[in-house]
């Protein structure tokens, strides 16, 4: 019997492949081949011994083929391989680092959320440097079916060790019911948000909610939910899904699966998904939460991405997914109001506040009439601009100079 975990091959970096077998002779026999042997060979061996001693395993043969994996990756791979031959409930958890924590709030900015495959450590390590509002460690589509279990250990350790650079710590779990197992491993690590793929009904949210209530009894920290609507049925039930749990802070749409469900081709202009996108935005707004758009899958097409963001913003979405770090910056900028919008909003808000002081219901600015909805929209832009750092919180003071 042999447990294995990890990846190997010429293109693999910052990862390792590990196998663990029970041995008849006492001792942990470590066969290490590492490209960083000279610098970290002893550190790797001592980590390995520490893990086996933690699990009270005394006889084992361990092969490690290491391509420069960091400690939390080695630990995840060793534990995943070891549990296959020595099952048990104990967990070997790396220390939770301060830089792995991020601020979160129900209505924080969620312009860009960067997908990182849950079994690819190389892509995780610097995920935090790109300025994404959220980083999604993905256990679903980017992880092969036979790698689901080991990815769970890796994502768990990443949540404790990675520097997220202030981005919201998100995890996309698998479709239910497999996703419920993911929750057991992930929730104790205090992710900020869980994405639930292929949501079609409110009852799925209820299931997730139940587990969360059990695992997070004191709720000392919030864990938000973002259901992803990826089917015709999901679109029909969007509002029920959006309001099924108080933990839901945003509703996302996944267009690859949605168009597959319709049996149509996904196009750049997206006419085939207009109804679905508008429905999701409408449901989200009705539920008082954010609407988040699907990913733009052609990384090389910078112009196409820009057009797509503009269209998405115009429909009422407040963010979209990123499949490559180079998409983060254009997406952040794309959903931000531009300077012209902010300047105009400032004028409107000031004029409106002045009007309220004078108890006027409707006023005009230039040739345009300003009524409550116009003022409300302007105020939203101002609030947003302050939140994203484009405008100082005390902007009114400067305006009176």
């Amino acid at each position, binding site marked *: 019997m042999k447990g294995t975990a990890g990846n190997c091959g010429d293109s693999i*970096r*910052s990862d390792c492949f590990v196998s663990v077998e029970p041995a008849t002779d006492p*001792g*942990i*026999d*470590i*066969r290490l081949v590492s*490209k*960083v*042997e*000279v*610098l*970290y*060979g*002893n*550190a790797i*061996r001592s980590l390995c*011994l520490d893990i086996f001693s933690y699990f009270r395993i005394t006889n084992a043969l361990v092969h490690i083929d290491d*391509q*420069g*994996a*960091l*400690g939390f990756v080695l630990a995840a791979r060793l534990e995943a391989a070891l549990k296959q031959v020595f099952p048990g409930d104990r967990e070997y958890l790396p220390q939770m680092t301060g830089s792995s924590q991020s601020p979160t709030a129900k209505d924080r900015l969620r312009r860009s959320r960067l997908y990182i495959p849950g079994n690819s450590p190389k892509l995780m*390590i*610097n995920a935090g*440097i*790109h300025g994404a509002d959220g980083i999604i460690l993905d256990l679903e589509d980017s992880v092969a079916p036979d790698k689901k279990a080991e990815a769970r250990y890796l994502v768990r350790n990443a949540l404790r060790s990675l*520097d997220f650079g202030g981005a919201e710590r998100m995890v996309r779990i698998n479709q239910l019911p497999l996703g419920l197992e993911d929750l057991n491993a992930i929730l104790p690590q205090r992710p900020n948000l869980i994405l639930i793929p292929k949501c079609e009904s409110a009852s799925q949210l209820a299931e997730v909610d139940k587990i969360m209530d059990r695992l997070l009894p004191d709720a000392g920290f919030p864990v938000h939910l973002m259901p992803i609507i990826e089917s015709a049925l999901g679109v029909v039930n969007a509002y029920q899904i959006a309001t099924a749990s108080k933990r839901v802070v945003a509703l996302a749409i996944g267009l690859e699966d949605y168009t597959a469900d319709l049996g149509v081709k996904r196009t750049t202009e997206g006419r085939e998904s207009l109804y679905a996108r508008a429905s999701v935005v409408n449901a989200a707004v009705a539920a008082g939460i954010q609407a988040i758009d699907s990913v733009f899958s052609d990384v090389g097409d910078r112009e196409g991405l820009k057009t797509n963001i503009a269209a998405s913003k115009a429909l009422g979405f407040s963010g979209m997914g990123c499949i*490559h*770090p*180079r998409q983060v910056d254009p997406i952040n900028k794309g959903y931000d109001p531009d300077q012209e919008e902010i300047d105009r909003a400032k004028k409107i808000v000031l004029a409106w506040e002045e009007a309220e002081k004078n108890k006027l219901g409707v006023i005009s600015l230039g040739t345009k009439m300003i009524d409550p909805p116009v003022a409300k929209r302007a105020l939203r832009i101002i609030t947003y601009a302050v939140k994203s750092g484009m405008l100082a919180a005390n902007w009114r003071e400067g305006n009176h100079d």
Partner: protein
Amino acid sequence: MVPEMVNGRKTIPYQGVDNYKPEGVFAARPVASCADYPRDGNKQVKDLKEALVKAGIKSGMTISTHHHFRDGDLIALRLFAIIRELGLKDMVWFPSASFPCHAPLIDYLEDGTIHHVEGSMNGPLGRYCSEGNMKGFGVLRSHGGRYQAIQDGEVHIDIAVIAAPTADTFGNANGLSGPSACGSLNFALADSQYADRVIIVTDNLVPFPCVPWQIQGNNVDFVVVEDKIGIPEKIVSGTTQITRSPDRLFIAELTAKFCETVGLLEDGFSFQSGAGGTSLAISTYFGDIMREKGIKARFARAGSNQFLVEMMEEGLVEYILDGQTFDLEGIRSMRENPMHIATSPFTSYNYHSKGNFAGMVDIVILGATEIDLQYNANVVTHSDGYLLHGIGGWQNCLFGKTVILPVPLFRDRIPVIVDEVTTFCGPGELIDVIVTERGIAINPLRKDLLDRVKGSALPIKTIGELKEEAERICGKPEKPRFTDKIVAVVKWVDGTVIDTIFQIQPPHQTNN
């Protein structure tokens, strides 16, 4: 520690930047008489073997080759096969650089055909040397240092074998056309001027005159025609790809932003950029900023490539001063465009020239395997102690006005910023800025730059903070262990010895 003698010559230890000034006169080869050469100018002989024999090849001689064919070179191997066939021993190979394709020469080092290599040793040859298998010391020189060593007589070349993509029977040669076109041939310039005997080997013989004559036939003894002297697809190798790594693109963009913020990107500026993926990305980000600001660069010093050529043809760059050409577009441009000029180590780098171009460049982008807290850097060994890269023009380029090293904070767990570099190749006083994906460190000597980033949004950190961050992520690495056997020395640009490389201690195989 620096050895007193290297390969039978007395050495002078490194004395600091610009402090060592040797005296004496330039070296020279024996006087030649044109009466000894065919009056009709035809110097062609049957084959390389005949040329070598006629050149008087003997055991123990120093034979040079150039590296313009990079990993597609066929001539060095053919040369030493002939030398072995002639039963000669203890040759010194003096290449301008070596590549992985030269790994078979390890056999020749083993059987005594080659005594040692004086030149950069990359990949397998570096490993062989690091493990203490070579008889003499490896001597690593910069491109400028190689010219200097030839010119002041530290290295005397007995026979130079110059592979030439195009040549005439008189020996005029260039790299601009032919099946093995490589652009410039100027890494062989000193060899052609100072070697006792010079052999041109070409697979594209043209009638006299072969112009332009990057190598002048007046310096050439024999011309040989061979079927194939290089592998074209490896001459213009795949190095000229803009990186797709998100982290490296991020570093490249940050580097460009830094240059813009501190005011280095102004109309008429100059930059030097290599052909590595990050360097190329930086050039393209420069291009974006230049277009936006409506400025252009007076010149770029390069290893040229399609991206730089595009910038020149778009009008963003006026001149390309080209040391080596990395792809077909670079070669075409050099052939067709008078503003794209082949430079040499003499014009660009040489310590014995009356000045050189390296110091005139505003922005210099370079790499490093390690950088220490004093900004000293290493380019030849890895942190595990193995000799794996040559110096190239790196040391010479340090004399540019602002030297920037864009590097990842760590590579596959190995921190780049360390307490002390494994091999000291470049003094920190010449290195100004380190750009990593997690912050930018500015050498405290550059108070002007520190002033100019004040109030900017750039992530400025101290080099100590960067080192701590790397160690927090990767863990503190152990040091490699060496024996006390010297395997190679690293020269500074003036010919002094700046550091010594020792034999690697084989890793202990503990299995606990």
